[in-house]
């Protein structure tokens, strides 16, 4: 399976995301922000970082990159899309996911290993986890507070679209401890923590993040 990883100016974790795809057994295909072609990929990852220097708002400029027009159209047709950290912010700015991410309530950049509870295993990116499974993966953000109005939050909860929730403490003030959500169809998922940093024991707290990529590829994690 060919998995595209987008590089925007200021992306940081595109190489790690591509590596995670390869570790899980997929083929990582680099996609460039200024190139509208998706090069026949079967899925897309929007990686972490500081696209366009986080100017204006995190993800606000990246949303208008040529590659994003193609991704938005393809996502509506069912293309699996995973947004990690800055990628999650881009997905919210592009209205592929509801809500927004604001500065951490602690006013501090948070960088630590974070416990998450997987609450929806019905998405293209989480099928390999057990419902309620707790996983440990790194989080690193300054603007990771998930906010949305009450109606949107209630709708997300009622339809099971809260994919992962912070466990063992909320690191950034996210409403209802929400760490990641999906769209209605379950093909688009965004989360602030970084599963791509937890795919090999050598460089992460464990391999709990591998399940996101293995789920997509349909292989054992």
């Amino acid at each position, binding site marked *: 399976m060919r998995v595209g990883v987008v590089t925007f100016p200021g992306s940081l974790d595109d190489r790690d995301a591509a590596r995670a795809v390869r570790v899980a057994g997929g083929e990582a295909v680099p996609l460039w922000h200024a190139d509208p072609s998706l090069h026949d990929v079967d899925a897309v990852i929007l990686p972490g970082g500081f696209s366009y220097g986080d100017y*204006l*708002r995190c993800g*606000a400029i990246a949303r*208008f990159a040529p590659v994003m027009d193609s991704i938005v159209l393809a996502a509506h047709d069912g293309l699996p899309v995973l947004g990690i950290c800055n990628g999650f912010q881009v997905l*919210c*700015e592009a209205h592929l996911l*509801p*809500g*927004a991410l*604001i*500065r*951490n*309530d*602690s*006013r501090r950049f948070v960088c630590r290993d974070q416990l998450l509870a997987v609450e929806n295993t019905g998405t293209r990116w989480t099928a390999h986890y057990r419902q309620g499974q707790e996983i440990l993966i790194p989080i690193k953000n300054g603007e990771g*507070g998930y*906010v*949305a*109005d009450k109606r949107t939050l209630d709708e997300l909860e009622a339809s099971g679209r809260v994919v992962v929730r912070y466990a063992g403490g909320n690191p950034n*003030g996210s409403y209802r401890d929400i760490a990641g959500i999906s769209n209605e169809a379950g093909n688009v998922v965004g989360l602030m923590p970084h599963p791509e940093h937890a795919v090999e024991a050598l460089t992460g707290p464990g391999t709990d993040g591998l399940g996101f990529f293995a789920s997509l590829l349909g292989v054992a994690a």
Partner: protein
Amino acid sequence: MARVVVDVVLKPEILDPQGQAIVGALGRLGIHGVHDVRQGKHFELDVDDAVDDATVARLADTLLANPVIENFSIRRA
């Protein structure tokens, strides 16, 4: 050419940690009596006269502000 000013502020119900940090710094500066600060963004646009209000509203609503968390106001200077 015309000058258009767009001001963007977080909605009242959205927490503003930067504003809170400023309130804290004012106390350390020895200034008391400031209870709340809301930080926003101020944009000055030089536009052709042909750019109408609807167009400015659209660019403010789609790019300068995120209506999920922010309100904006427009005035011609």
